[in-house]
Each structure stands twice: as structure tokens, then as C-alpha cells.
């Protein structure tokens, strides 16, 4: 009896603690959302008056348009390029047995655990020493150094559950190597590829430390936000912050929704 009660109390405590953690994680995001609707130039709490004017300004601002188009171009290219590299990278990571595999696995993961600011600076001096002037395109490369390993990992998780016999069966049933890749390997790994692309897009969209040193004269949204946070604060900061957050959430929801729809159509 008492043992059971004690257990129940512990379980409830853990549940409450976990609930508070979720609150803790979303607290600053919610604060930014709240601030974005505040009428005042400087955020105060409780908010004296709400207004949507900063959103209007953000939408009509040419600077914002530039920032978004830079961020978007980088994120889209990073997502596409990372998925192609990551797909083959994942086959080497999880599907095939080869002599250097264990070493390769560790090398590929290394950039993920690397201090991003230092990586950005290292790339900056590398670009300068080989005579490349940094702009948004060098930022694509910088993002990829960090994101390709992540995408490789994401697709690898899918590739681990891949039964090698599927490829052999296709081959045995008369498919060529290329047909096997097209008809079996790629479709079976597709879920991993899609989530890899989604991850890549979102991580590039929100990245700050790598962009900071590698975009040159171009500026991404997170960079601009940071610059304004440090000096020359404008109420557009929470507004644009809230906007990028919402758009990331939208991409996530649309991506997931599209995915579920696709599965359902396939299952029919």
C-alpha cells in the first residue's frame, strides 16, 4: 500500500518536473511572440497596449525582404546539396561493410561536435587565403560542413533498418545495379531523405554562428537580429524573430503533413 503510494508520488513529481521543463523550453519563444505584438518601442511587462504595426513594417521593409531572400537561398541550396551528399554518405555509413567504415563514421561526426564559431572563423581565413571573397555562397559551404554530417546521420538511421536482402533480391530478380538503386534503395530510404532535407533546411534557416563569419557583405535573418540585439535595438527584432520562428514551424508542419498525406496515398 504505502510502497505503491510512494511510487505514485514519485511518478507524479517526475511528470510535474517534466512539464515544467517543457514550459522552460518554450518560455523565451513565447516571450518573443508576446513582445512582437507590443505597441511600445521598448518591451514592458505587463504589456500596456497591443498592436500589429510592427508586422506591417516587417512585411513592407526592403531590408527584411533582402534578409529573408538571403536566408532562404542559403537554406534551400544547403538542403538540396546536403541531401545528395548525405544519401551516399549514409549508404557508406550504415549500409555497406567496408574496411574504413568505423573510421569514416567517426570522421563524419566530428564537425557536429565542433565549436561552430571557431569553425566559421577557420572557414573565413581559409576562404581568404585561397582568394575567395565571402558572400552568401560561402555561407552555403559553411552551413554544409555542419549540416551534411547531420543529414548523413538522419538518413543512416533509416539505412540501418534497411534489409540488404532487398537489394540482392532485386538484383537476383533481374534488376541492374542502377535499376536496383532507383527502384528499391532510394524509395525505401525516402523517409530518411525527406526528414534529412527538412532538418537541413531548418538548421540552415536558423543558424547564426556559422553565418556570422562567412556571409561577408550579405546578411541572414539571424545575423541581422543579433546585430540589432547588440546595438541599435528596434522593435522589429521580436517581430522578425517571431516571424522566422513561425515560418520554421510552418515548414515543419507542412513538411510533416505532406509526408503523412504521401504515406496515406501510398498505403491505399
Amino acid at each position, binding site marked *: 500500500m504505502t510502497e505503491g503510494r510512494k511510487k505514485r508520488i514519485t511518478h507524479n513529481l517526475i511528470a510535474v518536473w517534466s512539464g515544467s521543463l517543457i514550459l522552460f523550453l518554450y518560455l523565451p519563444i513565447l516571450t518573443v511572440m508576446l513582445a512582437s505584438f507590443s505597441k511600445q518601442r521598448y518591451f514592458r511587462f505587463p504589456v500596456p497596449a497591443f498592436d500589429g504595426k510592427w508586422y506591417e513594417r516587417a512585411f513592407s521593409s526592403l531590408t527584411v525582404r533582402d534578409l529573408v531572400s538571403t536566408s532562404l537561398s542559403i537554406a534551400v541550396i544547403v538542403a538540396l546539396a546536403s541531401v545528395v551528399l548525405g544519401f551516399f554518405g549514409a549508404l557508406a555509413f550504415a549500409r555497406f561493410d567496408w574496411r574504413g567504415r568505423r573510421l569514416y563514421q567517426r570522421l563524419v561526426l566530428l564537425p557536429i561536435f565542433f565549436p561552430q564559431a571557431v569553425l566559421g572563423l577557420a572557414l573565413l581565413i581559409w576562404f581568404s587565403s585561397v582568394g575567395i571573397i565571402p558572400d552568401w555562397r560561402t555561407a552555403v559551404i559553411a552551413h554544409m560542413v555542419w549540416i551534411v554530417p547531420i543529414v548523413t546521420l538522419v538518413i543512416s538511421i533509416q539505412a540501418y533498418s534497411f*534489409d540488404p536482402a532487398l537489394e*540482392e533480391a532485386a538484383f*537476383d*530478380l*533481374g*534488376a541492374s545495379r542502377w535499376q536496383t538503386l532507383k527502384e528499391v534503395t532510394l524509395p*525505401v530510404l525516402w523517409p530518411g531523405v525527406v526528414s534529412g532535407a527538412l532538418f537541413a533546411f531548418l538548421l540552415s534557416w536558423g543558424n547564426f554562428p556559422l553565418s556570422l563569419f562567412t556571409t561577408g557583405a550579405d546578411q541572414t535573418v539571424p545575423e541581422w537580429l543579433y546585430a540589432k540585439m547588440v546595438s541599435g535595438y528596434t522593435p522589429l527584432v521580436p517581430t522578425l524573430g517571431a516571424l522566422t520562428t513561425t515560418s520554421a514551424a510552418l515548414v515543419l508542419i507542412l513538411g510533416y503533413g505532406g509526408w503523412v498525406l504521401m504515406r496515406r496515398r501510398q498505403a491505399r
Partner: protein
Amino acid sequence: MADPILRLSQLSKRFGQFEAVKGIDLAIQEGEFFTIVGPSGSGKTTLIRMLAGLEEPSDGEILLRGERINETPANRRPTCMVFQSLALFPHRSVGQNIEFPLKMRGVPPVERMNRALDLLRLLRLPEDYYKKQVSQCSGGERQRIALARALAFDPEILFFDEPLSAIDYRLRKTLEKELKDLHRETGKTFVYITHSLEEAMVMSDRIGIMRLGELVQVGAPDEIYSRPANRFVSEFMGEVNVLEVKPNGAGLHCPVLGSTLQGPDGKADFESGYLVIRPEYLRFIAPGETAENTVTGVLYNEYALGSRIQYQVRVGEQVFLVEKLREQRYGGKLDDEVTIGWEARDSVLATE
């Protein structure tokens, strides 16, 4: 005998230092159901993968109707394999799975579909399964889908890599019989590998027993059951009594029992060997009865095995298993001193 459809000569496969298959010679006849049985690590998987074209032999030859096919890759061989995991494509419907080999060969869609529907009928699957997802099918149904897919392009030989090993006992028993029926119906050559001799016995025309990369015995099921070539084969058949013996003129001396036994007729020119007696050939000897060989020990335990009962009799260090039908069960109780015996012709002498 007619020319064999498949002939292996001195077929070998090495992985680095490890020799998985060691110079196998074998001829498989057209229309035969041939099963290779061996424990895991015996090289049977490597062997069948070489036959299917998924592994290249290190040495020797594979001849299909007299033609060397060593270098022909799997997708160009007129053979097909049913995999252990079945390897059904999860992203395709049942129909698309069955049609896959036809699609790869450029068969037009209508023809493909008709063939797929024919195969569904042949394997007694409802026609509306054509559109069903593989993930929604039961274990037995998947098995049949895999068979249909393998038969789709009308291969000359079907290989099976333990397709029934992951299936529960009762369904396996049904599928074994279905597979044998399918073999009759199609008249194709089936080459099957398994680790279960019991499974092989049910289905095969001939069985090859493999051990450490070599074929130890090849023969019809009856032959292997009654005349196992050596101790390994007889033990592989299931639980048997094995006694180490040395010929001593009067018969076979068994050191562990300290007595001389009578073995089956045959050669006596060997150093030492094993006398193998199946548990069902042993019987309890009542006072007044006799047998050609008898030993006395203690009844230690008994185990009910469905229609039969197995007894453990301890004679010193040696443990004997005796199996009786329920109706012929032993009347006494545990710890009784019992005499058990068998006739010399019921034992098998293995010399290695």
C-alpha cells in the same frame, strides 16, 4: 541417369583466411527437390549464394546444363532465390512485388498483370490481394507472395535460403507441405537450405548434409535416417545415444560401460568408433527377457513428449535415453534399477 541440371565441381569459397566452402562436388537432377542441411557456420548459405550468383566462387565450377556460369551475375541467371527475410519490397503492393522481375525485363503492363493474377491463383491467394500492401499481409501470405514473385519470370531453378526459419512451428508445418505441393505442381528444380533436418525430411527428394564447408553425406531421406554416415550426421538427426567403442575380437569394447557389445555386421578394421543407437530402439528388459545387448542402470527421470515418453537411465557415467510410446510406458517408478537393451542390427557404427 539423365544429365544433371546443375553440377558443382570442386566448388570453393574463401573469405580471407577463412574457407567457408571446401571443394564441393554435387549433381542436382532436373525437377529434384534437393535440400542442404547444416548447422549455422557450415557454409550452406555461402554455397547457395554462389549458386544464385550473389557470391563469386574462389575455385571450382558451377555448370548449368553443362555450361559454366561462375561469372554470370545474379540478374542474368535463369535462377531465383527466396530469401530468409523474404525481401519483399515494403514500398510496393503485392501485385507490384510479383511483377517486379517482369518489369525489369520490359514486359508490358497488361501482360505483367495477367501473369501476377495467375500466380496469385496458383498460390491460392485472393485476386484482390493484387492491390494490397505487403505490410498488411500475414506471415503465411508473405511467404506465398515471395514464392509468386520468384516464379514470375519462370526461372529454371528456385533457391531457398531458410525461408521458414522465422515462422512459428504450426504454420511452418503447413508451409512445408504447401512447398512440397508447389514443387509437384510446377515441376521445377528446388534447392533448399535449412538447419532443420526434420524440415528437410518432410520435403526433399534428396538431402545433403553439410559440415564445416564440406558435404558429409548425400542421400535420400530414408538412407540418411537409417544409415547416417558418421557420428555428426546421426547426432544432427536429433537425440541419440552415442557410445565410444573399440573392436576387441569378441565384439566392440565400450570403455565407459566396461563391457563388450555387439555391433551391426560389417567392417571391424578400425581403431575406434562410435556406436549410435536411437532412443526408440532401446527397450526395458523384464526379468526373463533378453536382448543382444543389455546394460543395467538406474531410472533417473522421465519426460512426456506428446505421444511418446522419454526416460533417462544412468549407467555409471553414461546417460541413456529410451523412448517409448505412451501405451508401452514403463510400469515402475523413479530410482528403480532397470535393465535396458537393444538388438545389434538396430545400432549404427560410425567410424569418425
